């Protein structure tokens, strides 16, 4: 009798390894796609304005709110054969489900009006991303959602390690001399999110090994990761189409 795969297995199985390599490739491809999006190009080339940042937060908020919904839906779609995964995902959802409040406060600290961010609709990319994630999360035992979590967690790391500093540098230029220190009060979502995500990534590594039982599992995880990357990029492209 083969033993039930468990989360504590440290060494990656061959399928887990194959999946991890594929996910890294999907991530690198996604990072390049981000580099082709105008608002991210402006950020990387220090042409980013306060207005750009406010637009970015307005457009990210809906996805952050919906993020907690698709994660909890994912958790509830796992039956008892994946009870260990369900526990992990519930823990993850618990930690993040009110992140959007930090983002809203960042927006207000940057000079935005509360009513503007509260009433801001989902852009076309957020709509597509949310629709896809809720659809996949609703399937029975949606192991492919590990691919979605991989991409979203990777983004958290990227925001904290790359974007937050670039945003602060641009905002410092935009604020009056006396208010320069305010820049760091506007990027708490990006910073905080990344700090947490380190430990989320560790958990993801373990989960990959656990859920990759067949080639089909690997392919499904990679496909979902790719779709999430494409739709997330669409969401960021839409920021400039308003």
């Amino acid at each position, binding site marked *: 009798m083969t033993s039930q795969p468990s989360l504590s297995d440290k060494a990656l199985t061959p399928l887990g390894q194959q999946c991890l390599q594929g996910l*890294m490739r999907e991530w690198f491809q996604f990072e390049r*796609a981000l580099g*082709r999006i105008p608002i991210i190009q402006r950020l990387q080339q220090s042409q980013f304005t306060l207005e750009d940042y406010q637009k970015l937060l307005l457009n990210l908020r809906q996805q952050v709110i919906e993020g907690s919904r698709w994660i909890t839906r994912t958790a509830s779609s796992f039956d008892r054969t994946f009870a260990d995964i369900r526990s992990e995902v519930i823990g993850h959802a618990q930690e993040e489900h009110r992140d959007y409040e930090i983002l809203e406060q960042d927006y207000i600290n940057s000079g935005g009006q509360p009513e503007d961010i509260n009433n801001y609709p989902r852009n076309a990319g957020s709509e597509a991303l949310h629709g896809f994630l809720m659809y996949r999360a609703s399937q029975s035992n949606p192991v492919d959602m590990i691919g979605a979590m991989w991409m979203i967690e990777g983004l958290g790391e990227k925001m904290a390690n790359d974007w937050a500093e670039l945003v602060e540098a641009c905002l410092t230029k935009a604020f009056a001399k006396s208010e320069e220190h305010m820049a760091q009060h506007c990027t708490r979502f990006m910073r905080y999110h990344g700090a947490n995500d380190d430990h989320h990534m560790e958990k993801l590594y373990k989960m990959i090994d656990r859920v990759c039982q067949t080639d089909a599992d690997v392919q499904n995880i990679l496909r979902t990761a790719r779709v999430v990357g494409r739709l997330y990029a669409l969401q960021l492209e839409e920021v400039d189409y308003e």
Partner: protein
Amino acid sequence: MSVYITSTGHCLPGNPVNNDEIENILGFVHGKPSRLKKKILQSNGIKTRHYAINRDHETLISNSDMAAFAGDDCLQSSMVSKRQLGMLSVATSQGDLVLPGFGSMVQAALKLPDIELNTAHGICSSGMMALKTAYMAVALGEHNNALVVASELASRLFKASRYEATLSNKVDFNAEFLRWMLSDGAGAFLLQNQPVGRCFKIEWIQGFSHADAYPVCMSVGQNDADKTWQDYSTYQEAEAAGALLIRQDVRLLDNIVKLGVDGFLRLLEKGKIQVGEIDHVLCHYSSDYFRGKIFSLMEKAGVAIPEEKWYTNLYERGNTGCASIFIMLDEFAKTQHYSVGDTIICMVPESGRFNNVYMRLTVVES
């Protein structure tokens, strides 16, 4: 047709220069010692390097003459005469002249008659571009052989007077960074369509460039986004504005590691290489700092190559840009132990605007 690297050569000008002597040669900017030097040297791990300029900032050997020395060194240990050579393919980041192409100058210095010529332009990866063009020309049967030379004379950019010529009183980090990284040298390979003695068969050369997705990371010719050096009224104005300094946007540098591993994973996926087949890795990482980063990312991806298989002479010969991989394989071939049938992977990541080139070699014997 199969293509073999049947001979290698190099030229490293003058005596090795250790870390304490660097500033005596390149000069003290505004008469003051650099505050960054120690930190950057600690991080890149380079102990000695060579410069083609002396402490009076006279150029002792030109870039094209260094290239010619390396070419001659390579041909001398082969049985191919200059008259038999079909093609000369060369690379540099910056020739002695803006025009004509560096290849013309190297051809003249080497006294090669009636040859087909190619010049590849770029930074570290340009040597591999020159090599690939020559490799394809021989593989196609256009030529029986080709000489490939890559040469760099970066030190002229690092003279203290270059920094003093700008209007700014202090040197920013990005403009100073490469001063403690790059040095001079040239390397050469002879390609033939027949193996000669113990030599290296080129299995493939493959590049992946990502300039569409990333900003410029290493450059000469620009200081602000709107103007390049040629857009100023005079070169003097361009220099005063700092547009002629060599710069590295260090914030973007980590991307080179990710892209390097990404390319490696692609080659694995395409079945062009398997980790277990690799006996030697020659990687042009510019700095010891990146060695650690490359190792840990490869380990994460489950494609780690044991440390003892990695060879480099970066720490003794310096980072010579596009010439590095040529100087590295030359010294590897002459000093290291390797056997017939061994697989060698060469990797050349370039941070200019992110181009990574890979090559697979097999050791053969005729």
